[in-house]
């Protein structure tokens, strides 16, 4: 089949391989558990490391909202944005960082490491990912994109099944 293609942007297999390799190295160096990439509209792109035990779809949506709300708080303070956020729990903590203004890197870690180490290892990782995503977005700009007609037809049939045919 012809694969459906994005109206706005697509996350390709080769992008995924490269990004996962960067994140695997980061998790090892930082002794962190899981790294997740979420787009600013609230959609999960990829997960690396220990598989999450929570609902990833809900997590992605809340992460994007969290980051967006904090962006607005930053502006109220006269800051352009908060490039990173940290949420500390008793056992689990989250460190979030902006990537190219379109994606959020979320790192999940526990007491096997320290915030200092995570922050230290995160900095070059963010720079590397920013460069990869910036190249990806500029490559996708202006490319015409379509899903094929058969995809739309089949998806409409599924909609009728799920929501009724009235």
């Amino acid at each position, binding site marked *: 089949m012809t694969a459906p293609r994005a109206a706005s942007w*697509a*996350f390709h297999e080769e992008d995924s391989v490269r990004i996962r390799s960067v994140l695997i190295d980061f998790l090892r160096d930082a002794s962190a558990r899981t790294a997740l990439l979420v787009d600013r509209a609230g959609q999960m*792109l990829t997960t690396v490391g220990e598989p999450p035990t929570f609902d990833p779809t809900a997590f992605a949506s809340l992460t994007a909202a969290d980051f967006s709300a904090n962006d607005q708080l930053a502006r109220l303070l006269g800051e352009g944005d908060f490039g990173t956020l940290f949420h500390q729990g008793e056992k689990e903590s989250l460190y979030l960082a902006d990537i190219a203004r379109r994606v959020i890197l979320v790192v999940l870690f526990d007491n096997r490491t320290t915030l200092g180490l995570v922050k230290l290892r995160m900095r070059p990782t963010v720079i590397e990912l920013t460069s990869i995503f910036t190249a990806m977005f500029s490559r996708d700009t202006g490319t015409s994109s379509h*899903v094929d007609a058969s995809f739309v037809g089949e998806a409409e049939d599924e*909609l009728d099944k799920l929501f009724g045919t009235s």
Partner: protein
Amino acid sequence: MSLVNYASREINCKIVYYGPGLGGKTTNLEYVYEKVAPSSKGKLISLATETERTLFFDFLPVDLGTIRGFRTRFHLYTVPGQVYYNASRKLILKGVDGVVFVADSQIDRTEANLEAMQNLYDNMTQHGYDLTRLPFVIQYNKRDLPNAAPIAALDSALNPGWTVADVERQKLTPDPYRPGEYLVREVDGVWVERVPTFEAVAVRGDGVFDTLKAVSKLVLKSLG
């Protein structure tokens, strides 16, 4: 904007329910959540105040299943209706693929409807989106109430239509949901387009799935 993830073979689309406070946006999502098969839905998340007014958003993912190798999902969001939560409303519109405007049919909510519609246009413009080019439907909710305004009055206030400049789109287009009416037609020498509308009583589910299905199909078509 919709994201095609070739690595995880997923397509995700974002639909936002917009409208005045207490108009029934959350009720729409709650009904969908209640009726859709458990295997096709995720968690319904509500960031609400203690009095159950939406503070930030409600979120419900609905799974269409795997279509031509791609797991296809619609992410449904509502925004807070109250004007003073505008910052949250605007944030939720980021990356939107389709909009449902849930209007409150009651005559005394006319001003609130108009204000919310204007606010929707403003917030979309600030994101750089053109609402006239995006999948967009209107739901006239609370049709069962005795003080519900006539549909013609709601249409005239909330869905007067916009001028169609694109010559290719200047053709008589029947409204598939309202027999005998048109989505695109010529009025006094000017081509005008309006959006599909649906009557609803969301608390009992009337019109909820008709609305969702219509906007979902428009979103799918926009991918093509």
